[in-house]
């Protein structure tokens, strides 16, 4: 029988519990979120003469938690209204609700005795066969079985989310000796496809995989700072984006997580892993103990390794902790020749090689730190897992690293890595030597678009389980690229579907990408079913290459500029008007031109994490690649007889005028960037391309006919213009926008009204594109627009002039 999850009970509404509840609501589940009844009344309740029997008092803890979670930033919920899917209650009055649930997750405080009491209660109401799991990060799953019924034991395992559960991709699945294999298989698949997570099957060992290795890595850096005489700023610079890790790097991450939490895990590892060869490293250095003593725990206590202060002028400044003196000092600029050298290198693999080869202190740091990490992870097999890829998966998904330890090792080279370790006195596990003597020199292998890993027991490569059927550009790139230029590649996905991938800087759209789109559509029309436009960069696209626009505008090459904008518009139109289906599959940021490309797709298959917007106002422009035109078209399509058109015009106008960016794909629907009934959301990033490819095939197989171009867009003309002028003037008079903003607003409004026509009239897309382009070009002649573009290009900041 197929197991389905419709309703989930989350027991415990703390930071993790309420956020897990939100993420389950995100994917459409009904959620019952329960917590304890307060022990005493608070002042407000006393003042209102309430008692511990008052229903609102009884649910105060859970309701307060959920409310503050929903207010937190970044938002735990895709769309505000999804929070209505969460019903709150308490353990005393509402435990019966778990009988209706298909999955029960325990997320209460990390105390075995309390968990036991809760599970006793769960057993009273839980229907046999219902999934039950714990989100514990520290208590062995096996220990929770004591006193539990057989049915409970069979359906119980660990499901360990990482904070924040909406954004961090890791979900560790930890079976006990009694968990049925069917339950494990279910969670491995459900976590991936439904929750969008990387599910990693773990053994029931202390801190499981990600925290075991991750905390080792942090603790070893805590010691390395002293050994190598380095600073907080230096370590964070070296272990951040340059290495393919989050900006928060090491110490800032500690501040976010909270030093107390980290110390708790480290102490647990110190105590529970006596045979770990790195046990000494889990001993806290003095400065950490001192920080805990001082309650310098990070964000939660407003200071940790960093502290935000305001100077006399009210300007914020971030100070960093000098670990020797334990004084906060202004941030130092970090300078290493190796870092300078890697600056122009976009490719992470190339960069990683350069970092490790560095002749300075930075190079020394990398060699030393990674020698330890490589040895540590090799020695954790088979203790924490039998499969090396699980360690990489866990760290990548749980800590946001782009490369796992074994992947990094592959980049350095097995042999070089071993030499480096020997030089630093680190000893890898025997299986690495065995692998080497078997003539195998890499942990992973890519063959014919399929990635496999070195399986230690069989001493051979095996396909990574669960990756079957997925489509990955990284895997296909080497074997299936059939055309490429500097900024993009056309990759054959098989089954008659092509993919256009950008790889320009920040995936911006310039001449080469435009050429690539036309080439890809041309090829697809010739001999394929259709085209997907997607990539695996950090973001889908930061927008059009404004650098090019800037240069042409400054040189006053207006004819060329007109030509370039026209080419952009024509290409967007070709995305819609070609004889094959074109599906765009964006993820993370899809801004400006990247958004316009989506607006013209036959269908958008969006990742749930989609930050989409027409943000051209920020650089003093209006959407000029058909974005403005498309908003007018959609406005016209969404109107029904009797609607108040002018209010709808205002909403569409403000979405562009305020450069609104969605915080999720669902919000992109609300903002009108995505279309209900046409575009689609996929929660699993790993499945997104597969779905996009299938969409192309389906559309082609159903019989795809190029849409007809009609003169059917109703514009308002002068009926709409008045409110544009008055609105822009009022906003300027109220100092909400600058005079230049007012000017841009009037230009935008003019295009959106279809010009100054005397009455409502039906127009073609080309008419609007011409208006849009004219306004765009006019703005390019304005000094203030150029200043804005220059600010973005040189400082990465939006200038309000």
């Amino acid at each position: 029988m197929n197991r389905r999850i419709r309703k989930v009970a989350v027991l415990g509404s703390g930071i993790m519990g309420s956020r897990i509840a939100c993420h389950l609501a995100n994917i459409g589940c009904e959620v019952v979120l329960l917590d304890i009844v307060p022990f005493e009344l608070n002042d407000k309740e006393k003042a209102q003469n309430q008692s511990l029997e008052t229903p609102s008092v009884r649910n105060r803890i859970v309701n307060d938690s959920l409310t503050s979670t929903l207010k937190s930033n970044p938002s735990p919920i895709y769309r505000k209204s999804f929070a209505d899917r969460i019903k709150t209650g308490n353990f005393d009055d509402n435990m019966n609700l778990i009988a209706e649930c298909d999955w029960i997750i325990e997320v209460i405080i990390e105390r075995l005795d309390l968990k036991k009491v809760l599970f006793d209660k769960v057993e009273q109401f839980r229907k046999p066969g219902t999934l039950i799991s714990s989100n514990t990060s520290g208590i062995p799953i096996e220990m929770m079985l004591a006193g539990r019924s057989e049915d409970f034991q069979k359906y119980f395992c660990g499901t360990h989310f990482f904070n924040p559960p909406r954004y961090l991709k890791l979900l560790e699945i930890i079976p006990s000796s009694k968990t049925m294999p069917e339950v494990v298989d279910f969670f491995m698949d459900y976590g991936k496809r439904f929750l969008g997570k990387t599910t990693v099957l773990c053994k029931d060992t202390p801190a499981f995989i990600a925290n075991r290795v991750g905390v080792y890595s942090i603790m070893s850096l805590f010691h390395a700072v002293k050994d190598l005489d380095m600073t907080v700023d230096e370590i964070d610079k070296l272990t951040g984006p340059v290495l393919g890790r989050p900006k928060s790097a090491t110490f800032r991450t500690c501040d976010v997580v909270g030093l107390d939490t980290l110390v708790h895990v480290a102490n647990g590892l110190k105590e529970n892993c006596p045979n770990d060869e790195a046990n000494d490293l889990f001993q806290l250095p003095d400065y950490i103990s001192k920080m805990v003593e001082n309650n310098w725990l990070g964000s939660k206590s407003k200071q940790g390794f960093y502290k935000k202060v305001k100077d006399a002028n009210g300007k914020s400044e971030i100070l960093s902790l000098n670990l020797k003196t334990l004084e906060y000092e202004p941030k130092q600029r970090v300078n290493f020749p190796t870092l300078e050298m890697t600056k122009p290198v976009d490719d992470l693999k190339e960069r990683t090689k350069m970092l490790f080869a560095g002749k300075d202190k930075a190079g020394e740091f990398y060699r030393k730190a990674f020698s330890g990490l490589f040895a540590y992870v090799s020695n954790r097999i088979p203790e924490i897992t039998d499969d090396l890829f699980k360690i990489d998966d866990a760290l990548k998904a749980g800590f946001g690293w782009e490369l796992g330890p074994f992947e990094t090792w592959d980049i350095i080279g097995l042999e070089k890595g071993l030499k480096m370790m020997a030089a630093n006195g680190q000893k890898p596990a025997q299986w690495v030597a065995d692998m080497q003597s078997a003539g195998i020199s890499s942990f992973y292998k890519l063959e014919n678009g399929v990635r496999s890993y070195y399986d230690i027991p069989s001493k051979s490569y095996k396909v990574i389980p669960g990756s079957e059927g997925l489509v990955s550009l990284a895997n296909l790139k080497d074997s299936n690229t059939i055309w490429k230029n500097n900024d993009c590649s056309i990759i054959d996905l098989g089954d008659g579907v092509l993919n256009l991938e950008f790889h320009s800087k920040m995936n911006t759209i310039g001449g080469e990408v435009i050429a690539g789109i036309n080439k890809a559509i041309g090829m697809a029309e010739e001999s394929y079913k259709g085209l997907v436009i997607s990539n695996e960069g950090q973001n889908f696209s930061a927008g059009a290459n404004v650098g090019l626009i800037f240069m042409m505008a400054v040189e006053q090459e207006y004819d060329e500029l007109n030509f370039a904008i026209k080419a952009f518009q024509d290409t967007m139109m070709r995305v819609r008007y070609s004889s094959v289906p074109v599906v765009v599959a964006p993820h993370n940021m899809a801004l400006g031109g990247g958004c316009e490309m989506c607006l013209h797709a036959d269908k958008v298959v969006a990742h749930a994490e989609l930050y989409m917007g027409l943000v051209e106002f920020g650089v003093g422009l209006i959407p000029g690649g058909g974005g403005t035109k498309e908003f007018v078209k959609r406005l016209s399509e969404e109107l029904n007889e009797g609607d108040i058109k002018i209010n709808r015009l205002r909403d569409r106008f403000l979405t562009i005028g305020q450069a609104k960016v969605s915080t999720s794909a669902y919000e992109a629907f609300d903002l009108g960037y995505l279309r209900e009934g046409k575009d689609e959301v996929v929660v699993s990033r790993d499945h997104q391309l597969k779905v996009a490819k299938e969409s192309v095939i389906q559309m082609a197989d159903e019989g795809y006919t190029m849409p007809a171009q009609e003169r059917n867009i109703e514009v308002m003309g002068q009926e709409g213009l008045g409110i544009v002028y008055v609105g822009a003037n009022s906003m300027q008079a109220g100092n909400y926008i600058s005079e230049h903003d007012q000017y841009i607003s009037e230009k935008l409004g003019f295009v959106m009204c279809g010009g100054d026509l005397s009455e409502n009239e039906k127009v073609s897309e080309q008419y609007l594109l011409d208006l849009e382009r004219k306004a765009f070009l006019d703005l390019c002649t304005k000094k203030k627009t150029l200043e804005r573009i220059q600010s973005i290009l040189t400082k990465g900041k939006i200038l309000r002039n």
Partner: protein
Amino acid sequence: MGQAYIVQGFRSAVGKANRGGFRFYRPDDLAADVIKHLMKAVPELDKDRIDDVIVGNASPEAEQGLNVGRMISLMGLNTDKVPGMTVNRYCSSGLETIAIAKAKIEAGLADCIIAGGVESMSCMPMGGWRIVPNPKVGKDNPTYYWGMGLTAEAVANQYKVSREDQDQFAFESHMKALKAIENGTFKDDIAPIEVTRIFLDDNEKRQEQKFIVDTDEGPRKGTNVEALGKLRPVFAADGSVTAGNSSQTSDGAAFVLVMSEKMVKELNLEPVARLVSYKVVGVEPRIMGIGPVDAIPGALNMAGLKMNDLDLVELNEAFASQSLAVIRETGLNPDIVNVNGGAIALGHPLGCTGAKLTVQVINELRRRKQKYGVVTMCVGTGQGAAGVIELLK
């Protein structure tokens, strides 16, 4: 020609828009209820002898559209003999109607008119559902279309009214209003309205609930100058006009019965007051809040009175900035302005306000045994209005 007299007048309590007791109560129902209450108070009058019902309204569309004045005459009087019309001069509509009634009666065109106004700000957005400015004017003279809040900022800037003064003024308005409610001062004015609410309970079962609205809902007990000082400006990024020092959006209705001298004598009624004079002026739309500065002397002059003849001033109090600028520029004695609080505390149901303040000033003059009051207001798109009221008994 004889004089026109105000024989009787009532208002509803003023409800908070979108949140209060009238939030779903239709303006035509509300106005009809007040008129029924008014008619009960004058049993001598045969309703078919009423010549007209004139209803002021600042957004005559949707629930207030389709000549709501006629609808209200039908609903409130339950006869088809009495006509009805709607008059819009924004915030002075409710006073304008009384002036029209007076003028018609004194010109011999009528003997008995019900005049006043109604506004439900719950039932539509400020300015109405569909605002379509003339693009030419929008380009050349955008201030003609400015929102009232922005004009209040312009007044604050031009007349140098500080944020602190505005907040202090707002605070005092609340305190005066709370005191008046506590003392039952408004009992004389208010026609209690019974409202039935039909709703679904938690189990989606239909429920009915009846309640009486007889108390103004706007005044905030807990407010203080510090709390008001923390509110952010809402009409300009660096402005001083906040939700706390602006009038509240509200729902309300108020009507008076205006009668000829001849008919008063015939029915043996005792008139309570009369509208002595009424003056409307035009000012720069950008600073519309300043309108009363010219209107008040105009009305006084017409009535042959001087500033110091005035015993009470009911100022519409659209914004604290505007109120203070008017008080200072006109040289009004602040002690006689809005003695029972103003619209910042009590609410400003636009088209009703003129009639509501007329009812209030008459009753307050009577309580104080004084003679002359003025009802005055700033009016959208650069106008000001003032009417001098004389108490007769």
